[in-house]
């Protein structure tokens, strides 16, 4: 899939995301001395942001509920995701995870 947003819209996204990301990075470095740290409640919530966001981001790429349970689970992308997750868990190596996932996807696509 390719975007149908025009070049100006894409550049605007690049600049706005860049500016807001910089604001996040600079926030406490800039504010130091004016506040004494992240409010504890916010800090608690921020702790779960990576896990929640990343899971919400990846899950639909691997799990595509089909008409039957078998169709849902016998999907190359889900199998590739499971293998890649196993490799990520044991090696914590991004390159190995990528290779394992892609090889599984290609193998399943060839067999099924």
């Amino acid at each position, binding site marked *: 899939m390719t975007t149908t947003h025009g070049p100006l819209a894409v550049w605007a996204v690049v600049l706005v*995301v*860049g500016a807001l990301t910089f604001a996040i*990075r600079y926030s406490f470095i800039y504010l130091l001395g004016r506040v004494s740290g*992240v409010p504890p409640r916010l800090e608690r919530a921020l702790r779960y942001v990576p896990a929640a966001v*990343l899971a919400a981001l990846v*899950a639909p790429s691997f799990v595509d509920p089909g008409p039957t349970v078998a169709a849902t689970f016998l999907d190359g992308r889900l199998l590739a995701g499971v293998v890649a997750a196993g490799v990520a868990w044991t090696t914590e190596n991004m390159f190995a995870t990528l290779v394992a996932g892609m090889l599984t996807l290609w193998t399943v696509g060839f067999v099924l």
Partner: protein
Amino acid sequence: MPTVPDGFFDGVRATLPLLLGLIPFGLVAGVAAVDAGLSPAQAVGLSVVVFAGASQLATVDLLAQDASLAVVVLTAVVINLRMSMYSASIAPYFEALRRRWSAAYAFLLTDMSYALAIGEFTDGDADTDATTAPNGGSTAENGTPRDRWYYFGAAAFMWLVWQLATIVGVVLGASIPESWGVSFAVPLVFLALLVPELSGRPRIVAALVGGSVAVAGAGWPLNLGLLGGALAGVVAGVVVEGRVAA
């Protein structure tokens, strides 16, 4: 010959083992951006300006799906919110910097540069351990010049490698047939970032809830499944943490 400040090259050297993760990630960022229909200049521009892999991939992924621009920006910002914690944690070490430098240092702040630097700053310096806590700012000692050059060497070098990897990805991306399914590498990168996060029950629950809601809401308009999933996951994590502590 001008002398390089003490610590700079130690920082550069410390990044070398991380390049095995950084380079493929940067390649994917370049390939994915071109696959999503961005021009080479836009693809490289994204890496230069944003310099945060996960949010870059989410941005191009959502652009490819023709999500509304507000959703694209909001998602990227939500993904990068975690960096406010790094900012709070590392701020005491940058206190002596001039404003212009502290802005540059902040711009280079990433998961990897933060993890490397905070590990180095607190290593063999037991009495400053409290500074690793996000709330330790008021009691923290200022970092030494060597600490700051170490950070700058590591972070600036990773920025450079990220740009080069993106450029190679952009060049390769145009010549890779779509049937190879290379865009599948994007969720795989997220997965590789997600898995090490899954330590402790609250985080696992946050991920399970976030992922389930996102799958259930995959057909919702405006990518609300993603934002709803992220929000539900964070709430679930906080709730479970409260239960575990109680």
